[in-house]
């Protein structure tokens, strides 16, 4: 049996967990002192040895990303933290920054020192006011304590850290769109290569990491790579925050080793609400193909979820019981992607618009079986044909739902309407068996 492993969430039940005093009482900023006494390259090596993989969805090895920075570029280097958490279902970084912003700040300082950067940014989405206050305060307190600014703790190392607030655009979670936005432009993805490691912010070598990745660095430096690899699986090392939402008895944040299963997590969270049947779920947000009851025992690590036909993504486990119409769910996700498509690439801009039209018709029971083929054909024309992965993500719920629930789509137009009652799915719908 897998058990929970609170590391990042360990102090969240302390009422002052977000203050400098509260963080230091739990051993905060000791890893920074250890790091400043190390060679920067040794820190990069430790993170490489830990096998830490990006916690923002793609799972790229963090240490390897750091290693891609060209050693001889004349331009300044930057660290940018992606705190633009907006993927539907994903809700781990926001509570982390609200309850424990200093672990992120400490991670930023250690990581910047490791990659020899003197200027770091946290790009946080704009719709989370209190989280922004907490981050800004944590940064101010870290400056006052001598953890940021000139000659940090007498080490001779300087670092400026700026909290930069976005303004409402899902696309800015894409790393190159984020850079454009941070430079003061419309947030639209750039063509890669060059990758940000070579030409990123202001054209300089840039590392962009997710909040949870950077927040994991202090514990790795403090406890060692072996400690980190003692959790998780061989290729998906360490712990991660699993976010359970939807039709589950106790939704919330569960920090566990990678490789835990949804069956285990559901057991901890009191099961599907009211003893109802699990119908479908997302392993890592709406951009990851849907799973069903059949996948309850798939280990939630990068390899196993991939082998089962989806992606681990951000461990955003959205649980839907058998009161939910899958066509309605997919329509709503498609409306989201159409709304958030930045419009730069035609396949994504037009494709998500078509999705919306077709799915609206299908959900209203006015479609035909031919529409399903059109949706699949359209998906082929979106997938892999744009600068970034937004369009790819949009195809995931569409294609996987047609594969898993074709009959339910057909029932809509056979019956001339949706066979489900949306009132039963609500929090107050009382949908007991």
């Amino acid at each position, binding site marked *: 049996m897998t058990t929970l492993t609170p590391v990042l969430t360990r102090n969240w039940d302390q009422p002052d967990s977000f203050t400098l005093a509260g963080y230091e009482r739990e051993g905060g900023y000791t890893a920074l002192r250890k790091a400043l006494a190390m060679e920067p390259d040794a820190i990069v090596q430790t993170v490489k040895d830990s096998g830490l993989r990006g916690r923002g969805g793609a799972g790229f090895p963090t240490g390897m990303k750091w290693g891609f920075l060209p050693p001889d570029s004349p331009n300044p280097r930057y660290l940018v933290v992606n705190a633009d958490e907006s993927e539907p279902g994903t809700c781990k970084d926001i509570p982390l920054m609200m309850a424990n912003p200093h672990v992120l700040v400490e991670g930023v300082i250690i990581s910047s020192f490791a990659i020899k950067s003197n200027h770091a940014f946290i790009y946080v989405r704009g719709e989370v006011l209190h989280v922004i206050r907490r981050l800004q305060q944590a940064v101010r307190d870290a400056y006052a304590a001598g953890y940021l600014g000139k000659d940090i703790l007498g080490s001779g190392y300087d670092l400026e850290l700026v909290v930069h607030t976005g*303004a409402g655009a899902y696309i800015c979670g894409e790393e190159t769109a984020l850079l454009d936005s941070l430079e003061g432009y419309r947030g639209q993805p750039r063509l890669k290569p060059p990758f940000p490691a070579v030409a990123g912010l202001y054209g300089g070598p840039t590392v962009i990491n997710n909040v949870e990745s950077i927040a994991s660095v202090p514990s790795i430096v403090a406890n060692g790579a072996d400690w980190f690899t003692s959790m998780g699986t061989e290729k998906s090392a360490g712990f991660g925050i699993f976010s359970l939402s939807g039709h589950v008895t106790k939704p919330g944040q569960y920090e566990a080793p990678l490789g835990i299963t949804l069956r285990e997590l559901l057991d901890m969270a009191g099961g599907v609400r009211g003893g109802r049947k699990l119908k479908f779920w997302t392993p890592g947000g709406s951009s990851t193909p849907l799973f069903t009851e059949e996948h309850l025992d798939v280990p939630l690590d990068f390899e196993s979820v991939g082998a089962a036909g989806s992606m681990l993504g951000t461990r955003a486990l959205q649980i839907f019981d058998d009161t939910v119409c899958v066509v309605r769910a997919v329509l709503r996700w498609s409306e989201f992607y159409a709304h958030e498509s930045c419009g730069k690439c035609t396949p994504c801009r037009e494709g998500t618009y078509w999705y919306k039209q077709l799915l609206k018709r299908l959900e209203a029971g006015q479609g035909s079986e031919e529409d399903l083929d059109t949706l699949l054909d359209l998906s082929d024309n979106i997938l892999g044909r744009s600068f970034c992965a937004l369009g790819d993500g949009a195809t995931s719920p569409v294609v996987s739902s047609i594969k898993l629930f074709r009959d339910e789509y057909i029932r809509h137009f056979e019956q001339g309407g949706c066979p489900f009652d949306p009132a039963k799915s609500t929090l107050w719908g009382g949908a007991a068996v």
Partner: protein
Amino acid sequence: MSEQLLKLEPPFRSTEPYDPETRERLDRDAKDILARYPQPRSALLPMLHLVQAEDGYVTGRGIDFCAETLGITPAQVTGVATFYTQYKREPVGDYHVGVCINTLCAVMGGDQIWNELSEHLGVGHDESTEDGTVSLERIECNAACDFAPVMTVNWEFFDNMTPEKAKRLVDDLRAGKQVLPSRGPNTLCTWKQASRVLAGFDDGLAHEGVQAGTESLRGLDLARERGWTAPAADTGRAAPDEPVKPEEITDPPPNEPGKPIGGDVKPGSQEGRNQ
């Protein structure tokens, strides 16, 4: 059609310049913002938040101010302002209310909340009540899915909402009664005040409110109950070279550690904070 075309133009393309005092204050703030960045153009997003803190929305004179300060054209500023949903082209209410209608929240009741609330107020998406107190927006996923259905007021979290709570919330806002977010400070600031925080200026409220909601603590609570922990360190946690002395800690905890936050508010709960 012509009505639609008219709507594309901001109703108040207020190009009337700021009075000298206001402009001087804005220039000072802009200087602060510019100092944060290696290149001036990066200041544009926070400056647009600053314009909203002053005017409530992105006005023509606000666009001119950004363009002049950054040495770019008004068209370039407008191009950016229209890309991001938080920048408004028309005035919003003092309290801008968001209802999450992304899939999970919609299914959990967000759709019903939206329908009932919109009917109750008689306003639709991106529209304000006649008295200018409340405006409504259909918002996308706000990263609080474990608290679904979720609403926001001026970007503060209102968790685990119902149609009844939602209607009471806007009624209270319109009646001028105090309304408190589930996870936020002990006051609800106005749209303009919130915009100033987004521009990067401190309002001194960071220490208020809960550190985490009930749902955020579910895993940790279970781990504590069952005695589950992460493995012990292989080398032991390094001791600091110079331990921090209590007198060096300038930031006292808002509450005694381990004790609940004062008052009759249950941490993380909606109950009692939204009456």
